[in-house]
């Protein structure tokens, strides 16, 4: 089955992974900017990273017929350095017209600090001023509930933001309802240990329905499975869900959300 992975960090993956994704049915993916595993020291490091996301990765993906899209930001872990964050945010508009850029992301909170909140709100302002889609990272483990609620507060504070143009990612059982009820899109990340399993994601689909709900692998440099979306497809098939519902979750929904960007142009073959 064709599918779209709306959140996967391909800079951390091998070219073999691109081939495997293509064999599994992945026709397009979007790659948010994220933490490299270490704090970058200068704005120049981010400029090079954004070139990798907008020039190199689309070419690697295209070798296997996969369309590569991306999101730009400085992530929450590095947002404690507000001065550097502001330098990066000031540089981002240079890249917004590049053909695979969908918006600002993945922005959000990590430890729910004041500095993270300042940088998050300034990213929201950047997105609003440039009419960009927004992809949001929510914290992990014990910080998730508090951080997700803080993020929803800040999103609702900014009247310029259109809620159907914002996806709040990494939702779990205790956060999914608040995100959907507020009118935002929600993403379930299939990731070992800290996020959600395919079985639990299918449970949430069964409880909350399929509207404005996407799934992704977030495959990165940590323990993760870039083919987690096909794992969810298998779990839905195992439970007897119809093909139309599975396709809505793994293809139609991400296409609808990402398609709000004029840069997202899925090929007619999909």
């Amino acid at each position, binding site marked *: 089955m064709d599918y779209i992975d709306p959140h996967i960090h391909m800079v951390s993956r091998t070219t073999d992974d691109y081939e495997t994704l293509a064999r599994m049915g992945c026709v397009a993916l979007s790659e948010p900017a994220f933490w490299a595993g270490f704090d970058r020291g200068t704005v120049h490091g981010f400029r090079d990273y954004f070139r990798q996301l907008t020039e190199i990765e689309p070419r690697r993906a295209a070798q296997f017929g996969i369309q590569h899209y991306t999101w730009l930001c400085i992530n929450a872990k590095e947002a404690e350095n507000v001065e550097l964050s502001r330098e990066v945010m000031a540089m981002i508009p240079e890249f917004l017209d590049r053909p695979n850029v969908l918006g600002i992301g993945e922005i959000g909170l990590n430890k*729910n600090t004041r500095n993270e*909140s300042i940088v998050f709100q300034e990213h929201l302002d950047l997105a609003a001023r440039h009419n960009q889609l927004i992809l949001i990272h929510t914290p992990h483990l*014990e910080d998730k509930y508090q951080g997700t609620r803080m993020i929803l507060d800040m999103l609702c*504070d900014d009247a310029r933001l259109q809620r159907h143009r914002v996806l709040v990612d990494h939702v779990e059982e*205790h956060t999914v309802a608040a995100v959907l009820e507020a009118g935002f899109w929600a993403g379930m990340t299939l990731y070992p240990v800290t996020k959600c399993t395919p079985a639990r994601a299918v449970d949430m689909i069964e409880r909350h329905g399929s509207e404005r709900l996407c799934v992704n692998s977030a495959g990165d440099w940590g323990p993760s499975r870039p083919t987690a979306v096909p794992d969810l497809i298998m779990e839905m098939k195992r439970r007897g869900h119809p093909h139309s519902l599975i396709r809505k979750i793994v293809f139609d929904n991400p296409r609808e959300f990402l398609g709000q960007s004029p840069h997202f142009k899925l090929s007619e073959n999909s």
Partner: protein
Amino acid sequence: MNSTLDREFLEIRALIVQLAAAFDRLDRCPDSAADDPRRHRLEAAIGILTGASQMRAEQVQLHFGKPYEAEWREKMGFAKTT
């Protein structure tokens, strides 16, 4: 017959055995975990599993998470939004 049990009985059984073995492991470890607050949180979570709620996964997640404070903006020194 319950179709979910037909499909998942052995998997759920295996998860429960894993959980039982994990608590046995905690009991066996030389530096006792008996007074560790994390051990108490784990045991309290088991209580949620055996309760009558049909939102056990959500309840367990909330149990392990920090609470939300609606006044967080004021505490961080941000202007209040109306």
